[in-house]
């Protein structure tokens, strides 16, 4: 197997950062075009602005949103791949230099002293995958208007599904106009606290039009989306038929004594990109 070419990896990271920040994901864009036909009045006008914003951002390679967020990189390493020394710090540096090179906003500060905003560090998470000779890089750019609205709740195992549903809808309601609706809602159910949060976040990579391969979960996603849309938040909370563009659920086995549920809210400017590096 050939060795990992670090220059190539650096280029991949730069492309991921560009792809996520400039222009809108094609599935989200077509969903926005659909809701342009459904909404009326001010909400319709604002959907029009979102579509125009996506066009300008893509054409002129400008950040879709000024909150260029914290870049979160998920790296799925094939079982046979040998990673180079200091791979993680290399990836973090590449993220930082890509942000710097593209003049994306320096929004990262030390959590306590909150001084000198900079471009890094972002976050990197590794996993091992069964695709033996490849590395998959997936980048999520998460702005804090929506990230601030994330909620984790550790339920009792005897909770009913309707209580969970009520909780999820109330999280969306609380997020409200602040978090830039219409949203994409990622939900993680099961595992431990951090697992549920991670599951919720990873659902954001799913295509907005897909439904979960498990029929039961797919029907829960559909039902929840209908319920959430009955909140009638509309674009930027101006009132309208659409509150969320999609609801995605992932599950993982959990402990007999509990049931963690994490609701991750994402704004309409859903910024993700993925690239597979074959070896």
């Amino acid at each position, binding site marked *: 197997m050939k060795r990992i070419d670090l220059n190539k990896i650096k280029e991949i990271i730069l492309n991921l950062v560009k792809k996520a920040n400039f222009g809108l994901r094609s599935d989200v864009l077509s969903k926005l075009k659909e809701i342009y036909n459904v909404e009326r009045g*001010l909400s319709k*006008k*604002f959907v029009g*602005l*979102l579509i*125009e*914003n996506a066009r*300008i*951002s893509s054409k*002129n390679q*400008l*950040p*879709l*949103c*000024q*909150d*260029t967020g914290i870049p979160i990189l998920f790296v799925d390493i094939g079982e046979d791949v040998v990673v180079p020394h200091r791979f993680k710090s290399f990836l973090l540096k590449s993220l930082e230099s890509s942000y710097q090179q*593209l*003049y*994306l*906003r*320096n*929004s990262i500060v030390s959590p306590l002293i*909150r001084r*000198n*905003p900079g471009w890094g560090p972002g976050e990197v998470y590794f996993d091992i995958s069964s695709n033996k000779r490849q590395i998959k890089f997936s980048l999520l750019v998460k702005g804090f*208007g929506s990230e*601030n609205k994330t909620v984790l709740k550790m339920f009792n195992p005897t909770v009913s599904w309707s209580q969970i549903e009520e909780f999820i809808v109330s999280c969306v309601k609380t997020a*409200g*106009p*602040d*978090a*830039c609706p219409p949203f994409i809602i990622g939900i993680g159910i099961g595992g431990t606290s951090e697992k549920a949060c991670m599951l919720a976040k990873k659902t954001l990579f799913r295509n907005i039009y897909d439904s979960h391969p498990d029929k039961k979960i797919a029907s829960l996603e559909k039902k929840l989306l209908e319920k959430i849309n009955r909140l009638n938040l509309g*674009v*930027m*909370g*101006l009132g309208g038929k659409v509150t969320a563009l999609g609801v995605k659920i992932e599950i993982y086995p959990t402990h007999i004594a509990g049931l963690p549920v994490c609701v991750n809210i994402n*704004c*309409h*400017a859903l910024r993700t990109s993925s690239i597979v590096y074959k070896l």
Partner: protein
Amino acid sequence: MKYLRTPLNEEQLNALNIFEEVIFEGTLYTLRDRTHQKLWSNIQSGKEPFNLKNSCIYYCGPVFRDKKIISCGPTTSSRMDKFVEFLLKKGVKVMIGKGKRAPFIGDLCRKYKAVYMITCGGCGAYLAEKIKNFRCVAFPQLGPESIFELEVKEFPLVVAIDTKGRSIY
């Protein structure tokens, strides 16, 4: 649809009603979490980095490339709620951002005859095209959180809280 230009006059502001679309032209000052804190302590010690009287503030931290603003949408206004009264007392008349505000902001808008307007969140690239000129007026060390004076044209807004204290949320 109404047009609003700086310098502002009271009559124009009083005539604005919630849900009304406004096309704004003139001067805005960007202000965020830490610039509110810094502005407050500066004013306590008698310094006013820009003239707050009759001014419009915009909750925003722009992005720059080649000395140009390339993205500048609004940030969440509710984080700034606790600073509103001190600004309105100093004469700020228009606040621009995104999202809901605490119920007491409506009372403050009525008391000080100020308005809160929203623009489209996540529309950074689109809104950057509306900026004709800008300069940094205070706290350059804060990077995107510094206070910038923006000259804008055809800036799209919706009245979210009017001088009667009514709110769209």
